[in-house]
């Protein structure tokens, strides 16, 4: 039997790795990959809490399904923005997209 703590530590580690990717990567597509890892670690947490704390309900899985939908929307809009920026400015490096920077 796997204790709940293993899942929580696992998803905390995955979230931290994703956070590192978001903060350290320069390419905007790679930043989106880091966001995907973070969203997935949240899903692991939701399902683990559902299985260990409230297996008689279904709230954890229902929320995970909604996170799936939101992640798909986020990726679609994010990649469209990246491709649009690439067409106009010929770059996908986040440091160079600084028109709004004060």
């Amino acid at each position, binding site marked *: 039997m796997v204790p*709940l703590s293993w899942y929580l530590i696992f998803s905390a580690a995955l979230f931290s790795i994703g956070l590192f990717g978001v903060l350290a990567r*320069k390419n905007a597509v790679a930043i989106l*990959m880091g966001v995907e890892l973070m969203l997935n670690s949240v899903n692991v947490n939701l399902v*683990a809490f559902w299985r260990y704390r409230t297996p008689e309900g279904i709230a954890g899985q*229902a929320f995970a399904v909604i996170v799936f939908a939101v992640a*798909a929307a986020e990726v679609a809009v994010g990649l469209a923005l990246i*491709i649009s920026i690439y067409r106009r400015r010929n770059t*996908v490096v986040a440091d160079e997209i600084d028109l709004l920077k004060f």
Partner: protein
Amino acid sequence: MSPIQVVFILTAMTTLGAALMVVTVQNLVHAALWLILSLFGIAVTFVILNAGFLAVAQVVIYIGAISILMIFAIMLTRRVAEDVNPQIGRRWWWAAAISVVMFVGLAWMLGNWSGFRSPLPAASSGMDPLVQLGEALVSVNAYVLPFEVASVLLLAALIGALMIAWERRPG
């Protein structure tokens, strides 16, 4: 150590290793392939957690759709995403420090929580979780409103993505 624990540890190690490769590897196409391995490990975790529908959805949505979109985006922007340039910013140690602090903080906070070592409860003998999930998502007393809002959000996001990425040719 029971077999399920061995399976979990192997899955977790694979997933975390692949995730580390995703955030550090130089070639972005390779990073996307490592991302697929990592997402597959999470699907296996869902199977261990007795959430079969989510495991299938993970494979279909994340591996089947999102990863392919990522690979398309990498290939479309390939010319500037050259593999020779460093892909990690100069101040990467700040990012590493923040991530480590985040992990230690989360682990400390969870370790202080009384339910941290909850044992695995017996699977509810009543309904099949899949049937339960399907009914909950369309039941007026449960999650039909969040479900519909999520679907409208997805539609709006896809139309918005189409508009943003549309190439307007003059004339």
